[in-house]
């Protein structure tokens, strides 16, 4: 058990520093922009730490059901990667299941939950 601040709290501390001190104080617009990009990168890392408990196993389950595969027993991230490669192979061969688009949409929405949650909320 690490002492506090833990990893998430450290990320949050550095994100705040980049946003309030570096970006706000920057006179060079390029530096300001890069500081905001860096702060966003830390936000993604923070959300990934929170979601990491669940998201690889959710992706693996979606792919297993789509491809009608039994659980491989590998760690969820490894299993999701292997099944994702298999799905890509089948899409290229023209033999992917008819429910593929819906399953892929759920997987992409899962990636957006960590990378860009606001993108999902925006109205078209």
């Amino acid at each position, binding site marked *: 058990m690490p002492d506090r601040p833990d990893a998430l709290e450290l990320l949050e501390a550095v994100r705040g520093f980049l946003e309030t001190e570096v970006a706000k104080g920057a006179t060079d617009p390029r530096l300001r922009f890069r500081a905001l990009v860096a702060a966003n990168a830390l936000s993604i890392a923070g959300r990934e730490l929170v979601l990491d408990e669940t998201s690889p196993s959710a992706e693996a389950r979606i792919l297993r059901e789509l491809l009608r595969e039994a659980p491989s027993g590998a760690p969820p991230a490894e299993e999701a990667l292997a099944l994702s490669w298999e799905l890509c192979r089948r899409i290229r061969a023209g033999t992917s299941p008819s429910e593929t688009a819906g399953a*892929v949409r759920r997987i992409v929405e899962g990636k957006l939950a960590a990378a860009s949650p606001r993108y999902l909320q925006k109205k078209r």
Partner: protein
Amino acid sequence: MAPVSEELRKSLEARLPALLGGPVQIAKLSLLAGGASMEAWAVELRAPSGPLSLVLRRAAGGRIYQDALSLEHEHALVAEAHRSGVKAPRPYGFLPDLSGHDAFLMDRLHGETVGRRIVRLPELAKARAALPVQMAEELARIHALDPARLPFLPGTGAASPARRAIDGLVAQLDSVGEPHPAIELGIAWLRENLRDTGPAVVVHGDFRIGNLMVAPDGLAGVLDWEFARIGDVLEDVAWPLVKAWRFGVDHLRLGGISDERAMIARYAEITGRKIEPADLHAYELLGNVRWAVGSLQQAQRHLRGDEKSVELAILGRLACEVEHEILHMLEEPASPASPVAERRSAQHRETR
């Protein structure tokens, strides 16, 4: 002044008299933008003809992009475009091995290039109103360039630009080495639906808000020619519609500044090329696949150490926004206005 720019200044002072026809005094030399593969320098100088405000575009030694033109070819293309009346910066000459790296000089244009400012700044409202028609006129001029004078362009002699575009993207995706089912679905759809819409032409390859110099009264110049190739006109016409180039103003499909109707109508009026909605949809989807793969490749530049940068790194995680747009476009019904789309989707159903 930093030692690098001092050395560059000496090299320039030695080389410029031959280029500009007499003695040259450099008043100012400053770095505008620098990456691992390319630098841009602002150069203020006094030439025999008078004062000049120029940009020096120079290789930086790092590995360049796979599909980019060499600086020598980019200079030749910009020169040909400028000669033909395209609003490209006036080039002032190619400088091979300028203290170790190839470079070329061109006019420094003034205005705004940053997309998120172009779509928002109140003082550019007039420019936003003028841009759709101006963009169409500029594209028509670019597409009228004579390919025979630019034999170095990639895609020269290809039997089908549409097939070449798809095959190129598949090769680039394979080079990334990650599974991306959403991109595969986009590619599978394109293989069925993307067609060559007419004779192949010179395409700019990166014509969008962000690569255009915008002044208060509109388009001041077309920049960033390194991805030019021989291709289908729709590659250029649909690229500025791609959602990533709307800079957050998503409901204005043309680059966050306007809907696309005025641009399409003006382009058709000048060129006599009617653009089918189904083809525009297909090429916009191609653009999204191109940018999804491009984002992954940019992240690879960071991950492989070609160019360490947080801006490149984060694109690897934002590629899923583009994947989401690909899936959204795949679900959109084909435009009812287009018999081509209906015929094609009927064929598609039969072959399944």
